[in-house]
């Protein structure tokens, strides 16, 4: 039954997709997988292989990291393949999600300042969305939502979870056709849970009430609200510490050239704003899916963050360790490109905001992973997290390490 459902789901995704519509009606057009829509013939660009094995400490590329003067980088935790999202418990335990390897890690600090890592959960499908609410860890694995109560007291023997999957009712992997089904999750200042529902293709005439959304829920999964529409896929969100507005990173589509469209930073001023996918991104009209829409009718991004850079985790800096100029500015991890002939991203940037919340500039902060001469990369930053002491954690998915950035005058 499951098999048939899967098959039907994939088939439905294809039939409903735009791939068929855009072809010049041959008798039986070959269906095109969602990811390949718009792909130029002959291109061999493909996603980079994940590394799912432990990287020995002496091969973790902390030495490659370059930072502004006064900042230092160290390895905070390692031996955690595929590490992505970071959520922190009230007692300071850090929980880390993954995608392909299906694990959730728990990281605790030893009295001597070193860290201990445990594999808390495994065998889950892409458990990349984590959020702590009180003493409960919520794990979002595609559409599955599992709540682990009192988790920090049970790190060696996690309790059976409360299954909230049905209450949240998120689209399944099959409904996504295997596209952009993994989650990022954050807790809003209003106590609601904010997550993404990515688009079910690279680009297509999608159901704009079901996909390409930012949505929020009560923690029990009730009262779904569309926070933003026309957002292709966001894998990073945070609320401004003063204005409480929702901000999000957003991935642009693939296969329209090396330099367009750009990934973007979105500022959601009111619930339900429309950012234009698949018709537009900012002033950029999609060459295949614009449908004659004026891009000015959609909300404009707060900043453009470079083509194919793969912007992911973002957090406002709320600590006091870093110089005052960083206060309430946004740190953004750029995981790095695959759909581009020359690598872009593989770094952490800072978006600077003025008093009105306008982005005045975007500056490089953590660099050194991308080698332009050899077109190789040493690691891929995915999440940023501000610790209580004001230091900044950066997760490196490729090498399975978390780096800690500190500042000394």
């Amino acid at each position, binding site marked *: 039954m*499951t*098999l048939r*459902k*899967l*098959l039907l*789901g*994939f*088939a439905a995704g*294809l039939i409903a997709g735009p791939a068929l519509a855009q072809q010049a009606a041959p008798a039986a057009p*070959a*269906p*095109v*997988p*969602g*990811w*390949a829509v718009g*792909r130029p013939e002959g*291109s*061999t*660009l*493909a*996603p*980079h*292989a*994940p590394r*799912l*094995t*432990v990287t020995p400490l002496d091969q973790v590329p902390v030495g490659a990291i370059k930072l502004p003067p006064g900042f230092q980088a160290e390895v905070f935790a390692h031996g955690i393949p595929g590490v992505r999202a970071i959520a922190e418990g009230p007692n300071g335990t850090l929980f880390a999600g993954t995608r*392909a*390897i*299906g*694990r959730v890690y728990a990281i605790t600090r030893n009295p001597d300042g070193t860290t201990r890592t445990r594999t808390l959960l*495994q*065998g889950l*499908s892409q458990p990349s969305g984590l959020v702590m609410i009180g003493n409960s860890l919520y794990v979002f694995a595609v559409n599955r939502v599992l709540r682990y109560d009192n988790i920090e007291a049970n790190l060696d023997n996690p309790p059976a979870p409360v299954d909230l999957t049905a209450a949240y009712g998120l689209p399944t*992997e*099959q409904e996504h*056709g*295997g*596209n952009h089904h993994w989650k990022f999750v954050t807790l809003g200042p209003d106590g609601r849970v904010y997550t993404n529902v990515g688009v079910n293709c690279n680009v297509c005439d999608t159901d704009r009430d079901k996909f390409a959304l930012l949505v929020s829920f009560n923690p029990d999964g009730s009262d779904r609200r569309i926070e933003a529409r026309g957002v292709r896929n966001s894998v990073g969100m945070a609320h401004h510490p003063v204005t409480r507005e929702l901000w999000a990173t957003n991935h642009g589509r693939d296969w329209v050239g090396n330099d367009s469209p750009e990934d973007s930073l979105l500022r959601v001023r009111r619930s339900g704003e429309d950012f234009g996918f698949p018709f537009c991104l900012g002033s950029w009209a999609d060459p295949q899916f614009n449908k004659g829409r004026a891009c000015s009718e959609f909300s404009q991004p707060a900043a453009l963050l470079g083509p194919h850079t793969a912007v992911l985790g973002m957090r406002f800096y709320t600590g006091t360790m870093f110089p005052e100029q960083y206060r309430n500015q946004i740190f953004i991890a750029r995981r790095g490109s695959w759909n581009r002939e020359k690598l872009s991203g593989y770094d952490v940037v800072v978006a600077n905001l003025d008093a009105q919340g306008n982005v005045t500039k975007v500056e490089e902060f953590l660099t050194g992973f991308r080698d332009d001469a050899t077109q190789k990369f040493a690691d891929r930053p995915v999440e940023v997290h501000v610790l209580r002491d004001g230091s900044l954690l950066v997760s490196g998915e490729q090498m399975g390490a978390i780096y800690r950035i500190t500042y000394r005058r």
Partner: protein
Amino acid sequence: MILSRLLAAALLAAAIPCLAAAQDARRGATESERRGAELAAHRCVNCHGADGRSQMPGIPSLAGQQPGFIVIQMILFREGLRHVPAMTAFAEGLPDKDIEDLAAFFASLPPGPPDDRRPRDPALFAAGEALIGPRHCNVCHLPSLTGREQMPRLVGQREDFLARTMAEYRDGLRVGADTQMNGAVMGLSNADLAALAHYLSQRD
């Protein structure tokens, strides 16, 4: 699981002589490949072949396979994310180092077709070849179809294994490190898969 262990134990005894020969042939190999050969001797070669070329229907050849592909698949077995009963016992609790060494060993072996590869059927071969472009196989597996990193070598693989694997992807029985292959074979008929499998198995 118990059955597969018994089977493996029974086959092991038969495989040990081949194994010594294989190890002799491996002089000059890297440390990782040598260690992988020793590990494979007690587990893998019974079914996958002492030279990494499977002579058993339904069992894939691993000789010359992309090491990144082997590593990821073994981890998916170990983590309980890919379900093949015969592999479960072997992958359970296997350290990363063992997996990497096994992958290095099999990747180092010269690839080639099984001894029982059937003669080429020109019509079936052509039908399979005609599907490669429309299905974008060459994007990830490269025009040579020898694969790269997490994407496997396809040429010279056992025809029966290729046909079954593609059907599993099509029917939602299996995903890889991601779901690209499910999309790639979606909607293909059994006849299409048979043609693709024949073409790939006949390519060298």
